[in-house]
């Protein structure tokens, strides 16, 4: 789960990390109430699960009612990297002296948690040369380790104490909630000398969801995604018109790549998992039938032990039941493929020997 800023901040607050007063809303009526409560000036911040909000105009200063009435609907109407606004956060304007960077992330190659800190915050960390990096095993950060980082950051006195406190709280939050990335960027030194988290990013390990009922309120799933999950499928919706279905995440990614190389636009990534059965393929077609943008379906199944006739049955049933009325371009590797081709001869599903042929036919067929 990739939490929104205001959700990450709820967790920060729970763990005692200093924040500016802020309020999240989804309508301008609600926003007006918050504006009164907070008082001007404040910042209007779009809530989307991707970075680059500032550059896209998703963060706007607001000084008075007139600006609010103009900017709130503007920001709420933005789409950033394909993501629509989930909410708007109004946050009191800060009097900042300096911006720092602080995060704890799961270092995949070193297989441990790693602290990244930098005296240069507020920009994308990848672009910052001055990084302090410290590996911390399973994520426990002792006071001594936190002090070392503060020292390398050249923080002194009460500022260093506050930094140590925040870093330890951040680590506790990361370990307890099983996060892959917990980031405060920027972590601001205020004019009054205190430290505040001005932004928050939090990415949890979905595989640990069963241990974290308390985080499930942040789960954002469409009806289609919920059904996909129930069937053990992985589904990512995309904005093209050719639905891509296959078994195995790698194979489906590979099929998306080849389709894109040939000028096709994928409408979704749908991995039906290890084996393919009549039922699982039928359920996949059911989910696709609910996506209105789809004009055709590209199927790539590598069935080691799968009988392709079993898969062919699912297509025939889907047409019989009027579930779909779309052309299907399929490459089915497995046994009985000649028989499967024969079964589908009169239908709108065509079987090809190679994925390259199926993709060419799909791209040409959809253009028409």
């Amino acid at each position: 789960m990739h939490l929104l800023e205001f959700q990450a901040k709820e967790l920060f607050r729970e763990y005692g990390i200093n924040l500016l007063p802020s309020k999240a809303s989804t309508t301008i009526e609600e926003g007006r109430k918050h504006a009164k409560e907070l008082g001007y000036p404040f910042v209007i911040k779009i809530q989307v699960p991707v970075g680059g909000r500032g550059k896209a105009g998703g963060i706007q200063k607001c000084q008075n009612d007139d600006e609010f009435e103009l900017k709130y609907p503007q920001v709420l109407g933005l789409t950033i990297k394909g993501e629509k606004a989930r909410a708007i956060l109004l946050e009191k304007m800060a009097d900042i002296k300096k911006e720092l960077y602080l995060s704890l992330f799961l270092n995949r190659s070193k297989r441990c948690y790693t602290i990244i800190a930098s005296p240069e915050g507020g920009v994308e960390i990848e672009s910052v040369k001055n990084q302090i990096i410290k590996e911390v095993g399973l994520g426990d950060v002792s006071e001594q380790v936190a002090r070392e980082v503060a020292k390398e950051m050249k923080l002194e006195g009460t500022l260093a104490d506050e930094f140590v406190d925040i870093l330890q709280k951040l680590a506790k939050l990361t370990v307890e909630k099983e996060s892959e990335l917990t980031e405060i960027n920027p972590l601001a030194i205020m004019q009054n000398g205190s430290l505040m988290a001005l932004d928050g990013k939090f990415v949890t390990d979905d595989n640990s969801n069963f241990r974290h009922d308390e985080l499930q309120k942040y789960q954002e799933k469409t009806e289609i995604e919920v059904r996909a999950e129930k069937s053990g499928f992985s589904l990512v919706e995309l904005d093209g018109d050719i639905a891509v279905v296959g078994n195995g995440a790698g194979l489906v990614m590979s099929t998306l790549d080849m389709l894109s190389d040939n000028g096709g636009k994928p409408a979704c990534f749908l991995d039906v998992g290890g084996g393919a059965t009549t039922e699982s393929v039928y359920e996949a077609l059911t989910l696709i039938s609910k996506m209105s943008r789809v004009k055709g379906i590209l199927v790539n199944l590598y069935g080691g032990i799968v009988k392709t006739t079993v898969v062919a049955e699912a297509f025939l049933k889907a047409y019989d039941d009027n579930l779909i009325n779309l052309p299907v371009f399929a490459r089915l590797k497995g046994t009985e493929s000649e028989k499967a081709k024969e079964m589908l001869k009169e239908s709108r599903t065509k079987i090809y020997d190679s994925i390259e042929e199926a993709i060419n036919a799909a791209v040409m067929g959809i253009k028409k």
Partner: protein
Amino acid sequence: MTDIFKLLRGNPDDSDYKKKGVIVQGITGAYGSLHAKNMMAYGTNVVAGVTPGKGGQKFEGKVPIYNTVKEAVDASDAKISIIFVPAKFFLGAAKEALEAGIKLLVAIPEHVPIRDTMEVIDLANKKDAIIIGPNTPGVMIPELIKIGIMPPMPFKAGKIAVLSKSGTLLYEISDALTNAGFGQSITIGVGGDPINGTRMIDAFDMVKDIPDLEGLVVIGEIGGDSEEILAQRIIDIGFKKPTVAYIAGRSAPKEKRMGHAGAIVMGTYGSAESKVSMFNKANIPVANRPSQVPVLLAGKMQQSD
């Protein structure tokens, strides 16, 4: 590092040379029993199963089932185990296996929490054991031993080592290799999770010194930086065997998890561009599609002739 070939095949003077015993944890479950049967049909010497509460029974009328891994190890002296339990029970099952003296643990389950995997790796390091996975199709020496869920058809004994994050792409590309006359000496599924018991670079270290190795195929995907680190290692040690790579997920949107828990690009971390450019730096061609892999490999072999 423990020698994986010693564990999988053994030495010619071992009494169990080429028939090393394998324990199957979760042998009575639907998934475990199906693949236990398939492994046995392939020739893998399944010597014991473990299912708590079913000790004393026999699987398929011949393989003894025990309540604990320790009992199974005591009775069979096996050093290899494969786990088929639901993800939330993986931590317990894996710890039990390592404590009982298992030296090669193949972790099939998908959706294991990262923290659990990290704990298991920590213990495996202390016990000098190898973990393959989680979320892996397994490991095999074609025509000798299969410890995993891969179908047998794509594979043929030979001299190419194949390392893969993905299961179906491993089958797909091995199939293409086999059809082009390139059999495989070993295939290792490192798995699609963010944290792997055997990383790409560890898998490479296991295969790089195979005496008659003729080539290496690396099947990567977006997420993490294990392909980059592997490419750097290949440059650093001056590995000269013909090597070809494939990277899935070039067209995937950023910050979206593409099926595998590990297949996600965060910022620039894990992008396909980064991986492809590192492979290029190591003079390793990257195929645009799976069927191109054997073609590129043949080309590399001609160059090195």
